[in-house]
């Protein structure tokens, strides 16, 4: 079974993101880039499916500039067999739909039986590409997957998605798209042998022309980024305990409207 995993390279969760002088992008200096954590669940699940079935191929795909190769290399170090890098300046301003269109074109060329994605990337938190991919490919899709099981002959997948208070279980005919939720699995560490082996694996550079992808203007454009307003300072209530408690209750009720 061929499985394709879409991954996005995002700033490390510990990064202090700063807005660039243009007011529309983030300042890339000092950012450590990682594979978006939900995408790591997707990679791990793909590898487990391959290991469980004893055969198959796992292909990681990512769209972005040259630095994205490092994210793909991490996926190869985890155990993916090869990687595809959608790397073309025309995609520099790609919105989710343009990204989905480019990925869909690559998926059509590869023809996998299953596509795994993270439920959203942790940078812009759009969470749209999976659904857009499903629409463009005409494949069934389920989000927030906590469990999955592919039937023995590889014709369908049973997937359980997280809903309030429990799981909702679907049967989807393959090919299908699943978006991983935290809890689906515990991603493995890339082993040192895996890291050594990764450099021998292929990362294929794909240009827009290779996909027959015509340039189209993005339908979403970023007008501006705004940092969160600074948190108002806390307040210390002075006085003896009975007075302070009264004031605290009043403040919670009237100022904060919390009770």
């Amino acid at each position: 079974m061929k499985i394709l995993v879409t991954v996005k390279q995002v700033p490390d969760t510990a990064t202090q993101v700063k807005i660039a002088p243009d007011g529309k992008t983030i300042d890339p200096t000092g950012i450590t880039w990682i594979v978006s954590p939900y995408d790591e669940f997707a990679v791990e699940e793909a590898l487990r499916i391959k290991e469980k079935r004893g055969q198959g191929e796992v292909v990681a795909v990512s769209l972005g500039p040259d630095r994205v190769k490092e994210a793909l290399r991490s996926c190869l170090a985890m155990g993916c067999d090869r990687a595809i890098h959608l790397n073309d300046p025309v995609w520099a301003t790609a919105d989710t739909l343009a990204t989905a269109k480019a990925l869909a074109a690559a998926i059509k060329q590869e023809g996998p039986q299953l596509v795994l994605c993270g439920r959203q990337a942790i940078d812009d938190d759009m969470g749209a590409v999976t659904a857009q991919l499903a629409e463009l490919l005409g494949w069934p899709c389920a989000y927030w997957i906590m469990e999955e099981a592919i039937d023995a002959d590889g014709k369908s997948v049973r997937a359980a998605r997280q809903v309030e208070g429990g799981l909702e279980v679907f049967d989807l005919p393959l090919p299908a798209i699943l978006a991983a939720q935290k809890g689906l699995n515990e991603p493995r560490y890339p082993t040192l042998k895996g890291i050594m082996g990764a450099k021998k694996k292929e990362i294929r550079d794909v240009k827009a022309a290779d996909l027959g992808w015509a340039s189209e203007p993005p339908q979403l454009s970023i007008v501006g980024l705004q940092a969160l307003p600074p948190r108002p300072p806390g307040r210390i209530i002075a006085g003896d305990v009975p007075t302070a408690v009264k004031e605290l209750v009043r403040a919670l009720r009237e100022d904060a409207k919390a009770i």
Partner: protein
Amino acid sequence: MEKFRGVDYYGIEGLLSEEERMVRDAVRDWVEAEFLPVVTEHHRAGTFPVSLIPRLGELGVFGATLTGYGCAGLNNVAYGLIMQELERGDSGLRSAASVQSGLVMYPIYTYGSEAQKEEWLPAMARGERVGCFGLTEPDHGSDPGGMKTRARRQGNVYVLNGTKLWITNGSIADVAVVWAKEDDGEIYGYLVERGTPGFSTLDIHGKFSMRASITSELSFQDCRIPLANKFPNVKGLRGPLGCLNQARYGIAWGAVGAAMACYDWTLQYAQQRIQFGKPIASFQLVQQKLVWMITEITKAQLLCLQLGRLKDEGHVRAQQVSLAKMNNVQMALDSARLARDVLGAAGIVDEHPVIRHMMNLETVNTYEGTHDIHTLIIGRDITGLDAFGM
């Protein structure tokens, strides 16, 4: 405190290959997630987290520079970075990996027979079997050539008699690499398996340093081992010294990791701790200590990197390894002491990692060639005159 942020004042990151960075990051993440949450309880109890050994094997840490036998085949810079990250956790963790890789797998790989390699290396790489290294004796530390342990051939066995002391992982090891003299007065190496009659171990208690590491005494009393357990390809002191050279290389990097841990923690602490109405990091005397640390760490990082590049080119000399071991451990110990000072009273409790590193580094300063011995090795090298009193 925030998660460890790495220490790189000089953009040394850019001198590493993508692969080297990936190796370092994999080990850094592992230490953060798997080791640091349990280190304090083990340090208090004086135990080593033995269950992590197979996990380290899975990661590929053991014998990482060797090729074949299930080993990762990394270069020496990547191996050094592994040691740095492990010791950022604890010197005991790095010691366990150093011993397994540099002092047990390396001699088996370099001096051993094919049968010995096949039997031990793959299982050790996986962390399923553990080794220890017996060179130091109660009466012979810095002068291993004077060792008293004897191996005597009797028919189809060697009979070992003697005692080895200060042996990391001694009591949990499945096999000991033991160095002993035969009747010809020469030193040879032997593999002694746990459970061999006449071989016993005793753990050393009451340590103030390397508490999260097992340190043992090995005792051999008419211990009979098969002839096939002797290393066929080495004779003389160069055997054990060749191993020590591997381990010392790892220590040079590891010490930097311990210093980085102390520095990063202390910098954050000093920026947050308010006295006289402002962060203590704003005081000149505190800044002086932090600046000393970052300066020395940066120098030590560059020393390690060049040492590693030389080793990868096959041009490294043992005396150069001595210089890095000597310098880096001393600077790490001094950094840890300064860091403890900046932490004030907080510096004496294990809620902060600093005093644990500080006490560990006292051991690191002593083992694998003391600071003084390395000084004399370099002194002899540059002057051509031997100050060992021989």
